[in-house]
């Protein structure tokens, strides 16, 4: 708890001391952290590896953008409409994806997200295809990095708090049970399928929220945000940080975003470095950075 409060305090002070580049970088980390935390609900707590979570980020972003561009709706209506639309589609996708678990689930989530990606790419009259949608705006006219930072920060803290409450709730406890012993959970009276479906929808809801923040930040949306690559990046961030922990996906999001935005300024082939970092983590801390460092710290303390 103390570590969480210190982290929050740090990020409250941070924008007063840092330049615009770093403030924007932090905003991007928050947005990505909401995304990875929502993947972690499925992967870490539900044992359901999803390779299609970008579908919900991209869908909410596109819906919000289209509501503004095509229907002329303001953010006050576009944002909730985008989230409701995303959640409903997720409920339908969940019916299909949860016909399987494990690798089957992974392939189904991938296939479903590819449908949206293909649609965004090919439906040029609606989405402008490969050009993406431009000319978007942020709510409340928050065009400066400083005010947008605090907006995203508050949304991220709230989102992560809501997800933390979910996994600590009776339903979240049951969810972890279905990850470890699904058959036993059914025999104990838990509706395993329903628990997974509810979690699937809840995770997509927060994936959608991250999508809204994403499109507000960039004021632009391109089909690449619906792609397999983006889902995989989120999944890798969760695994690197430590799936099934609260802090893991947040640390993982920070690692990926720092490498992507900061290191890429110095090294052109930053993807290669990202690959090396992942290999390093998987070899030396297969359970992820957060549990790995915790383990090293405990070993260090017991030695002294």
């Amino acid at each position: 708890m103390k570590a969480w409060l210190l982290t929050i305090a740090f990020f409250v002070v941070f924008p007063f001391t840092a330049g615009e580049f770093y403030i924007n970088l932090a905003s991007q980390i928050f947005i990505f952290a909401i995304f990875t935390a929502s993947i972690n609900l499925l992967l870490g707590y539900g044992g359901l590896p999803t390779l299609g979570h970008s579908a919900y980020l991209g869908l909410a972003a596109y819906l919000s953008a289209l509501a503004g561009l095509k229907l002329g709706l303001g953010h006050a209506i576009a944002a909730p409409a985008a989230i409701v639309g995303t959640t409903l589609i997720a409920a339908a996708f969940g019916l299909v994806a949860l016909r399987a678990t494990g690798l089957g689930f992974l392939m189904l989530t991938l296939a479903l997200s590819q449908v949206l990606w293909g649609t965004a790419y090919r439906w040029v009259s609606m989405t402008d295809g490969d050009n993406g949608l431009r000319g978007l705006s942020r709510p409340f006219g928050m065009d400066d990095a400083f005010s947008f930072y605090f907006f995203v920060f508050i949304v991220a803290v709230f989102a992560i708090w809501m997800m933390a409450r979910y996994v600590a709730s009776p339903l979240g406890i049951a969810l972890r049970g279905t990850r470890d012993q699904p058959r036993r959970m059914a025999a104990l009276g838990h509706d395993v399928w329903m628990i997974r479906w509810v979690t699937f929808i809840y995770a997509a809801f927060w994936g959608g929220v991250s999508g809204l923040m994403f499109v507000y930040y960039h004021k632009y949306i391109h089909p690449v945000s619906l792609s397999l690559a983006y889902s995989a990046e989120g999944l890798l961030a969760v695994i690197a940080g430590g799936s099934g922990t609260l802090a893991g996906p947040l640390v993982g999001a920070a690692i990926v975003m720092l490498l992507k935005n900061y290191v890429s300024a110095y090294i052109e082939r930053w993807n290669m470095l990202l690959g090396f970092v992942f290999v390093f983590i998987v070899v030396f801390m297969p359970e992820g950075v957060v549990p790995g460092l915790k383990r090293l710290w405990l070993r260090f303390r017991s030695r002294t």
Partner: protein
Amino acid sequence: MAALQITNLRKAFGGLPAINGVSLEVAAGERRLIIGPNGAGKTTLFNLITGDLPADAGTVSLFEKQIQGMPTHRRAHLGLARTYQIITLFPKDTLEHNVALSLLGLSGARWNAFGSLNRSFYEEAERVLQLVGLGHLAQRPVAQVAYGDRRRLEIAMALAQKPRLLLLDEPLAGLSREERAAVKQLIAGIPREVTVVMIEHDMDTALDMAERITVLHYGSVIVEGTRGEVVADPKTREVYLGH
């Protein structure tokens, strides 16, 4: 009233019949033992009763209510509980947490997504653990307790639900002589409102625990009756001794 009624139940795995037309009736409050050599279909029969496996044909009734086709978790809500031959627990969690999960399964609180698990679940879990003699281990992770204690935890999780029909799948398997005595005593102490059906493949260890015994062989019931009748029946001898 029959606690469990099975008629002409069939299940085949890829053309190989595992349960080949089993009919069986267990009265409420009865202690029934199902014995049979390895591969007789005992665990498959349990999996058909709980709904872990779908039956190919036949009907299963729980307290005169037909339940075939009903998902497993709904059968639990009708008062059906089971233990597993291959221990199926949550190894990283504490014993207390394991029992709490069992209590949660039948509670309306299991759909609460934003509150916290009421302390009363853990208090009740501790009470149940004390009942089976595991009270002192309540805070230990399952992975750190002895095999015999895990067997008892299996039973505790089932009993915590106050079932009407309890299916015990080889509850004595892999236990030492002392542990067996303790688990047997535990089973003997189960109140009469609970109907108990127990599987055992070793005939001698379990005979004294049942009123009626069913002998299963190659997926069929070959002998059924009281302890004396079954032991005296030449077909029982044939199955177990091969002559």
